[in-house]
């Protein structure tokens, strides 16, 4: 721990150390002062003893004096010998005690031997000194008595003299000394209490700090843990992915995301054996591979990125039966990421995602691409085929296949299908094959041919069982699929046409068509007007032979084209010099195309590469002819302006000539087309082109024929 520093425990450790230091300090001081108090008690005791000894000496000396005066003999026969002995003993003890007070040493008091330390208190030392000085004359007399022979009679007079003289002083000094000793001891006891109180107080303060700090830390940590837990819970509750930890025993962790149960379709997942859970929902092979993969990930010597691509649970299909007998299939993606602790892999973080939608979209996309590819091949033939014939073929094909299926359905269980019925199937198929060939639907024709081969094989079989018709049924289903695919392709084409205005398919330029009389007439007409206006023109035509159309329709188209030619050469196509400046060929190009749109309408496309429709010119013309006032003309948008060219009396030509200027031509075209139930659309880009598209119903009313001559006449 110390290697990494005290970290967040620094304060608490310092506080506890201080607490211990205070406690040990108090203990040590108590021990020290207690010893001193004990020592002081000895000193006090001995000081008291000295006081007693002084009294005892005086008493003994007075007794000896009395004995000597009265001639009393002691029990041993010697006069006052025991008192004398006592006197000397008392004096020795006094001396020894004084010495001990001075220099320290072992002494005997009433409780036995005690150790006396030298007195270092100045006041006490002074009192000792005073005591010693008083004691000196007494001690001198005592030493004289002590030095006498045992049988000699001591002269106690001088001793008594000094004893009596100093007795009171000695007692007083001894009392003072005792008092001093007491006061010293009391002071030390007070110190001891102060030290103890201070030490305990500091220790308590420290303890309080530790408690406060620790609780605060604990509360902060608890808050942090609670917040982290809440966040984790929120994540696990909210995430759309199934999350859990997997330990090295393949056991799932106790915390799992809420989505996991839904994704795996199981509940109570916490703590379960993941492999046992996985086993019933994947194939045995996938299970074995998954187990090996997880084991690999749990090894420390294998690089995670290297084995990531081996994950067999990248996309697994999980099926669950529904009450109605269907199987609900879902696709799961289960990923594993290592969790490290101290450089070791301890767990795997497992993420399970429901990728059903993605997989289905991918499959749909693939299927769609496949269909598109199939349809593209088919499209080539479909687009070349006559739409009405194709529709008729498809209707007949479905009808024929329904007939075949009906024949199969009504075959009996016992006798099987008769040869006569097989012949009928053959005839239906053969007829359809012929139609398919006529429309160049080669794939369908080949399938029908294979179907015929199959029927041929059955016809050759003398004994037919119903189950022999299993391949026939399979083929019929395939044919249905092919016909439906063509219908889908046609629907797609129709949708595309509905969304985007596309050019109708143009057949290859046919010289024979170019030489048709009406084309020749248009060319000649275009040239004639071009010359009149000193312009050049080239007209090309593609599409239907108008001679094959009904008279009213043919006349209508002829009339409309003539008007468009006149309009193009008068307004659109520029003079050769101007065209060159704009990078165009000198001759204005006019493309005319008439086709059957396949939806009951004939479509006429007329395009010139002239100057297009200039909105400013129409604004001027509209104001000039009084159609719009200047403000309205300025505000009018392109759509509004272009629509005005179909209005009567509006012409951008200021000068009227035989080809333009009256503003009648396009108005008449529009009127005629409308009366025939058709419509006109215009596309234009200024400086580039002008393109008219006219749709006319194939069954246009004959009475409109009369109007066409009017158009020509009026336009002219």
């Amino acid at each position: 721990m110390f290697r990494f520093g005290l970290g967040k425990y620094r304060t608490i450790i310092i506080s506890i150390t201080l607490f211990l230091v205070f406690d040990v300090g108090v203990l040590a001081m108590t021990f020290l002062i207690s010893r001193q108090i004990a020592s002081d008690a000895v000193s006090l005791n001995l000081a008291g003893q000295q006081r007693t000894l002084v009294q005892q000496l005086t008493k003994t000396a007075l007794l000896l004096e009395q004995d000597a005066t009265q001639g009393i003999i002691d029990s041993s026969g010697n006069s006052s010998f025991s008192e004398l002995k006592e006197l000397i003993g008392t004096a020795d003890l006094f001396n020894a005690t004084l010495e001990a007070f001075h220099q320290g040493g072992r002494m005997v008091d009433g409780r036995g031997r005690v150790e006396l330390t030298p007195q270092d208190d100045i006041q006490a030392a002074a009192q000792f000194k005073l005591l010693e000085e008083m004691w000196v004359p007494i001690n001198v007399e005592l030493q004289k008595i002590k030095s006498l022979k045992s049988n000699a009679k001591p002269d106690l007079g001088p001793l008594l003299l000094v004893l009596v003289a100093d007795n009171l002083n000695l007692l007083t000094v001894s009392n003072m000394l005792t008092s001093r000793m007491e006061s010293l001891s009391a002071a030390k006891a007070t110190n001891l209490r102060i030290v103890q109180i201070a030490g305990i107080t500091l220790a308590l303060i420290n303890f309080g700090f530790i408690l406060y700090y620790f609780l605060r830390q604990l509360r902060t940590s608890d808050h942090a843990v609670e917040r982290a837990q809440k966040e984790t819970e929120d994540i696990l509750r909210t995430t759309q992915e199934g999350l859990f930890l997997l330990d090295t025993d393949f056991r799932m962790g106790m915390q799992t995301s809420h989505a996991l149960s839904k994704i795996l379709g199981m509940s109570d997942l916490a703590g379960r054996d993941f492999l046992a859970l996985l086993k019933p929902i994947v194939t045995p092979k996938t299970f074995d591979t998954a187990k090996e993969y997880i084991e690999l990930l749990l090894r420390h010597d294998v690089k995670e990125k290297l084995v990531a691509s081996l994950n067999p649970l990248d996309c697994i299909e999980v099926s669950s039966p529904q009450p109605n007998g269907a199987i609900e299939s879902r696709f799961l993606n289960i990923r594993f990421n290592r969790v490290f602790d101290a450089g070791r892999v301890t767990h795997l973080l497992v993420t399970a995602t429901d990728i059903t939608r993605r997989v289905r979209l991918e499959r749909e996309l693939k299927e769609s691409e496949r269909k598109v590819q199939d349809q593209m091949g088919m499209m080539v033939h479909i687009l070349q085929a006559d739409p009405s014939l194709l529709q008729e073929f498809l209707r007949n094909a479905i009808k024929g296949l329904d007939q075949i299926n009906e024949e199969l359905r009504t075959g009996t269980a016992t006798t099987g299908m008769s040869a006569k019925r097989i012949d009928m199937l053959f005839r239906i198929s053969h007829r359809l094959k012929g139609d398919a060939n006529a429309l160049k639907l080669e794939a369908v024709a080949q399938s029908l041919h294979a179907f015929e081969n199959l029927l041929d094989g059955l016809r050759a079989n003398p004994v037919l069982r119903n189950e022999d018709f299993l391949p026939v049924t399979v083929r019929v289903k395939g044919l249905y699929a092919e016909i439906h695919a063509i219908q889908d392709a046609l629907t797609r084409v129709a949708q595309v046409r509905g969304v985007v205005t596309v050019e109708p398919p143009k057949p290859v330029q046919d010289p024979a068509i170019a030489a048709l009389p009406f084309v020749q007439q248009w060319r000649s007409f275009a040239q004639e007007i071009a010359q009149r206006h000193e312009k050049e023109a080239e007209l090309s035509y593609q599409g239907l032979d108008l001679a094959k159309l009904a008279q009213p329709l043919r006349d209508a188209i002829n009339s409309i084209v003539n008007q468009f030619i006149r309009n193009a050469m008068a307004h659109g196509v520029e003079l050769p010099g101007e065209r060159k400046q704009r990078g165009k060929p000198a001759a204005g190009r006019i493309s005319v195309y008439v086709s059957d749109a396949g939806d009951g309408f004939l479509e006429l496309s007329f395009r010139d590469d002239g100057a297009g429709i200039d909105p400013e010119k129409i604004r001027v013309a509209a104001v000039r002819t009084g159609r719009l006032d200047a403000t309205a003309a300025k505000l009018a948008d392109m759509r509004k302006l272009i629509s005005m060219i179909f209005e009567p009396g509006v012409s951008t030509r200021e000068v009227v000539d035989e080809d333009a200027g009256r503003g009648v031509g396009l108005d008449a075209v529009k009127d005629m087309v409308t009366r025939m139930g058709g419509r006109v659309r215009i596309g234009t880009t200024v400086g580039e082109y002008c393109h008219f598209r006219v749709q006319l119903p194939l069954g246009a009313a004959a009475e409109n024929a009369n109007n066409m001559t009017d158009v020509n006449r009026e336009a002219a």
Partner: protein
Amino acid sequence: MDEQQLRIFVDLVRQYFDRETGRLPEIGSPHLGDATALPIYDFTGVIGISGERQGCVYVTAYREMLRALLLQVGETDVADNNLCDLVGEVANTISGNARIHFGPNFMISVPIVVKGTAQAIQVPRNIKAYIIPLRWHKHEASLVVSLQ
């Protein structure tokens, strides 16, 4: 679904009858049916199929046939519960064996028994299903295979 796979289902049904009753059913003329016009008789055992192809396979039979089949195998209790169990057993046998034949690319469910003309049987729409009529002791049943 190609002819071979279709034949597996037919053979499984036939084998069941052969094993249980010693008499093969007659196989009727196989044909196609739209999802809205498939035969559903009194009792139907359905197995769902997913994986490479999605859809279902079911065996549907009239009460009389199942009753006769039960009596044939020595079971005298011909109550509806037993008839349900029986059609479930047929479907279960097909399901179990189909797993062996089709391998892991076809996921085949545990059978579900539906009583009555169940509208709830979910078959893929816009797909024509194969209908193979069966006849056993003059009783009729059908095997229907409807897979995308």
